[in-house]
């Protein structure tokens, strides 16, 4: 359905996506409200054939971001463009959008209905998206083959509890592929799986990007797996993008103190050098009302960090970091500092 474009065109673009949740302050009689800024001003482009990795710890807002992109969660503000066309975010998600953008959830055991066999999970999306009854069996088999569940007969009539985690996650990916999407969002697809089958899933995703030209968003807390896959890497902290770079530049040369801390924390038997880590009792993800979100844990924090939120500074080709340490660099217009690509994308839109 897509004609091949020479320049990498963003299939799904987000501009300034923001999501705030209001929660009641517990224990108060009068409903005092507290605003949680789950995602704040995130922009990204998902490009055909490329894997964009979003790395963050729990509470960083990465899952909410994926749900906004899948339009399961409505953004508080921001814009979405599918194939360059602006999406009306207040309106209901159309079936057409579901056919373009699919989301794979984290827990393969929970994301399959225990009362239905695998067949149901695959035939429903096919039927919803206009396949004929006569062909669904054939299509379901072929999509199972695409995720390397061979032979399909062994899996089609199994119930979820009869399959292993890795197999279920493949079924889950197959379910998403049934609708022939152009964008695949994967929310921590390997974190619930056994170590030995994780690479299988990662390689499957990589194959979908390389051979089937899907635009893939890979969300993870495991920065090493991001390094394995990513064509672009984004690090989030407390709802904000703190660092982003093409490829895995930011993993090899982390600039933001949070990215440095994250990398230093990963168990690494090869024993590379360690960076300083924040001292004292680790603090929960409470965002400071003003200033840099990471200031409370940052070993380099100055009074400026505590009072002024840093903008994104360009520190290399497409590499930006939201930290005052880089104040000598030029600030980026938005944290989406991929000028080349964006210009080409806009050119095709007009």
């Amino acid at each position, binding site marked *: 359905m897509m004609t091949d474009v020479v320049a990498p065109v963003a299939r799904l673009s987000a501009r300034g996506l923001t999501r705030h949740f209001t929660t009641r302050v517990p224990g108060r009689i009068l409903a005092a409200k507290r605003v949680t800024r789950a995602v704040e001003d995130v922009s990204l482009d998902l490009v055909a054939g490329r894997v964009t990795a979003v790395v963050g710890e729990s509470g960083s807002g990465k899952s909410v971001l994926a749900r906004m992109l*899948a339009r*399961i969660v409505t953004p508080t503000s921001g814009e979405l463009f599918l194939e360059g066309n602006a999406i009306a975010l207040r309106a209901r998600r159309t*079936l057409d959008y*579901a*056919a373009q953008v*699919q*989301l794979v*959830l*984290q*827990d393969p055991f*929970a*994301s*399959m*209905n*225990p*009362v*239905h066999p695998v067949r149901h*999970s695959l035939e*429903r*999306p096919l039927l*919803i*998206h206009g396949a004929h009854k006569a062909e669904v069996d054939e299509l379901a088999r072929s999509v199972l083959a695409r995720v390397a569940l061979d032979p399909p007969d062994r899996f089609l009539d199994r*119930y979820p509890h009869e399959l292993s985690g890795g197999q279920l996650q493949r079924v*889950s990916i197959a*379910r*998403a592929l*049934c*609708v022939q999407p152009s964008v695949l969002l994967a929310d921590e697809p390997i974190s619930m799986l056994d170590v030995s089958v994780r690479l299988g899933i990662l390689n499957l995703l990589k194959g979908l990007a390389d051979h089937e030209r899907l635009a893939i968003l890979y969300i993870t807390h495991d920065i090493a797996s991001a390094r394995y896959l990513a064509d672009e890497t984004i690090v989030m902290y407390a709802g904000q993008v703190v660092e982003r770079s093409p490829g895995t530049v930011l993993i090899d040369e982390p600039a933001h103190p949070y990215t440095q801390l994250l990398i230093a924390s990963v168990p690494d038997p090869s024993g590379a050098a360690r960076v300083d880590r924040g001292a004292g009792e680790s603090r929960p993800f409470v965002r400071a009302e003003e200033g840099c979100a990471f200031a409370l844990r940052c070993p380099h924090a100055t009074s400026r960090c505590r009072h002024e939120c840093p903008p994104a500074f360009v520190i290399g080709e497409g590499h930006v970091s939201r930290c005052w340490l880089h104040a000598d660099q030029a600030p980026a217009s938005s944290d989406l500092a991929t000028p080349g690509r964006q210009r080409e994308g806009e050119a095709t839109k007009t």
Partner: protein
Amino acid sequence: MKTLRLPRSPKVLLGLGIVGFFIIMTVVGPWLAPDNPSSTAFPALLGPSAHHWLGTTSLGQDIFSQLLVGARATMVVALVAGLVATLLSMVIGVSAGYLGGVSDDGLSLLSNVFLAIPGLPLLIVIDSYLPVTSRSNEFVIGLIISLTGWAWGARVLRAQTMSLRNRDFVEAARIIGESRRRIMFTEIAPNLLPVLASSLLFTVLYSIGAYVTLAYIGLTSTAVWNWGTMLYWAQANNAPLSNEWYWFVPPGTCIALVGTGLALLNFGIDEFINPRLRAGGLSSRQRRSLGLPRRTRLGLTPVLRPRAPRGAPRRNVVSS
């Protein structure tokens, strides 16, 4: 769909047997009755005998016939009330749980109010205003009982639906573009089946109690034979104080047996819903043959065939 497979425990089998027996009695009871339950053709207050298995009343009616005929009205009312109440609780509970927001607030409030009002007194008030013709109609009585008995089920179903609504497989169905209605009926509803079944058992149990009670205090037509009216007449004629046990013990025992059967079935459903309640694998016969203790105590994992330790002269205490 393997949504509800009851564990084959003795409890469940016994429950099935009891409930099955009374269902058969409901269907064929009136035909099997040897005499017309209202006929006063026999001598009064005969004790149990070959002719009158359960004796006769003070008016000379055959008690055994009353028992057989009375089963039908009792069970019909219980079933009508149980089904209607379960339907009500499903509609209200599931909608509240799935829709959330304002509709949830409203519907939960409604069921909480009905939960807080004591059921029987309300039932008595409503019933006492009913015209006598309606009091003899099993369906009217059943409907009124269901009005006071749906709230508990609605509350349980709401909680269950809410927890299902947030499950990943429901979100996954939403992501592929499944419609709301289909998510309700094909994704969520099958998972609610065990809870629904349990709720049905409870409302039937409640309804039997409520109906029999109404009849016992004379608020249903005394001309309709059910187990409650039998108790009413027995009480009215001071049977308990006159040692005429054969008059009031049989209907009371039948009520208790039906209730026990339903409750036993519910054990099976409970074990299905909450796996921790299932017995842990070993039957008591297996345990005995393996020399294991009758039950496993927490923090004392049983040890099978303790092998003599090799080498060092260590203690060889027989384990518990």
